[in-house]
């Protein structure tokens, strides 16, 4: 869901030249990006690329080494509880509150947001409505500790949403999910971004997930954003090469080209019916991603001019 006039709105997240290092170990080496209201943004990168560090800095849980960060118009490091009331946070490893019942826990945690309610944004959300939205309506009276992994994660999302946040952080939301649970979870994220005008920043190392959920993908590698854009933009423009395979007289050929259509046209003009086994394979986002990540992991300092996809 992209907003219609993004330039007129102030960004929900604005990060400029964000740097983070532990001693000599540089984790973030000048990260820049923005998130606009209602946008679903995926921070994609291999393990250890600095995704969690970035999100923890934005959540106000970690002090950055350098750079400017603004979240909902405030620097997270000096933010107060009224600011915190506007955030929803879903971490990957909650195991807490096993003895509480689902509804009881949501009631309790929701009550913290009541002082921060506003006429245009009623806090907390209605618990029954929320349970239905994440698909836990039949588990309201179950103990949290007895939920399955997928149900538990839905509860975590519900807790992240209970305060009707302006901004939701999802850190590696589907790690360890089976395909069914993963699809259900994706549906939940789609619904909430559409209904609540909630900006979502999610981290993932799963490309497929980024592609399914996000309006825009930021690829983080070697401590920098090495590419960003929609999934289609990234696969089209970043690498832009298409592989064409065919056979002629029992011989097989492969050719990589920028313009597959005209190449194939020429091929047929030249050989006509002699061409068999034609296969045109556009490089997938995965190819792009793997290529980018590999390049940055082996040569992190190399500048790559013209790589970024600017919207």
């Amino acid at each position, binding site marked *: 869901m992209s907003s219609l006039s993004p330039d007129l709105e102030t960004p929900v997240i604005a990060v400029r030249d964000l740097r983070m290092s532990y001693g000599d170990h540089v984790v973030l080496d000048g990260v820049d990006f923005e998130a606009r209201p209602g946008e679903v943004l995926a921070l994609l990168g291999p393990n250890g690329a600095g995704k969690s560090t970035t999100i923890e800095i934005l959540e106000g849980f970690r002090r950055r080494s350098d750079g400017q960060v603004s979240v909902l118009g405030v620097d997270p490091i000096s933010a107060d509880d009224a600011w915190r009331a506007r955030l929803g946070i879903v971490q990957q490893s909650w195991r*807490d509150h096993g003895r509480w019942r689902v509804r009881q826990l949501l009631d309790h945690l929701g009550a913290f947001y*009541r002082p921060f309610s506003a006429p245009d944004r009623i806090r907390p959300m209605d618990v029954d409505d929320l349970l239905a939205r994440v698909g836990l309506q039949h588990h309201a009276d179950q103990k949290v500790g007895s939920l399955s992994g997928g149900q538990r994660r839905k509860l975590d999302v519900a807790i992240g949403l209970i305060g009707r946040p302006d901004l939701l952080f999802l850190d590696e939301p589907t790690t360890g999910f089976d395909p069914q649970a993963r699809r259900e979870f994706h549906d939940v994220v789609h619904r909430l971004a559409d209904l609540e005008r909630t900006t979502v920043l999610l981290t993932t190392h799963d490309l497929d997930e980024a592609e399914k959920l996000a309006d825009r993908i930021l690829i983080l590698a070697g401590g920098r954003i090495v590419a960003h854009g929609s999934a289609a933009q990234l696969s089209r423009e970043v690498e832009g090469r298409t592989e064409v395979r065919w056979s002629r007289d029992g011989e097989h050929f492969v050719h990589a080209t920028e313009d597959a259509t005209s190449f194939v046209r020429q091929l047929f003009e030249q050989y006509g019916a002699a061409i068999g086994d034609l296969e045109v394979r556009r490089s997938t986002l995965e190819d792009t991603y793997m290529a980018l990540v590999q390049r940055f992991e082996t040569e992190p300092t190399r500048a790559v001019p013209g790589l970024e996809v600017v919207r």
Partner: protein
Amino acid sequence: MTSATDPTPPDPMFNAVRLGLRRGAIEMMQSLTTRADQIWIVLLNGIFIAVLVFQRDSDLGGTGLSLAGATLPGLIGMNIVMGGWMGTAQLLAVEREDGTLLRAKSTPHGMLAYVVARVTLAVLNTALGLVIFVGAGLFLLPGLTDVPISGWLMLLAVFVLGMLATMPWGAVVGASVKSSSASFGLSFLPMVLLVTISGIFYPITGMPDWLHPIAQVFPVYWLGAGMREALLPDAAAAAELGGQFHTLTMFGVLGAYAVIGMIVAPRVLRAMARKESGSAVESRKAKALQGWG
């Protein structure tokens, strides 16, 4: 209770304190309705009450009083150390590990409510032990019905001061350790050691002299002594060090632990809370799993 239509939202801090109290009460109810906790409560207190039964006919250091009569106040004092120091250390370490603390940190004024809830639960748990021991004592020890009202008031004063003296230090241990098993070791073992040398189950005068000053540095001894003074007749003083109760020193030592603890603990807790993050929880979980494997 604020209704949804209430036009004035509650004050956030007051709201959080109220929610912390409610949270402590909810957790107490959950504990009382959980089978594992029920078994633990029955087993542990059963053992202590059995000790009282066996000691009923023994003599307290030649005073003509029942040894069980002196052990009961000792148990009440020890129970405060268990609830205030060990319970707090253990729960804090466990809840850092499972993410409860991070959850509190992610919630507006959640840390305030968390601290209030921990205090509430520790006080309720310790009070439950107190009620069990006093109840058992009323059945087993006829002398307890003769305790004057001033004795019960003193018990209450030592109880409150004891909680204040032990909880902050439990929090310091729970906030400093790397894992919940380390917290258990660092809180349970010292406690067993101190209980052994502090004259809880038999008069301290029976221990070697060089152990007395060591025991007197720690609150365990003074909580036992304070409770004995509250519940025993004056004649029982003969079994104490120097043949008398040391009321002022007792309040002084416990008071010092309380004051220093309440200066130190908030700093340690704040430092711990600052460091708490998703990756911190994650790495502790990874270590814990390694430990199991």
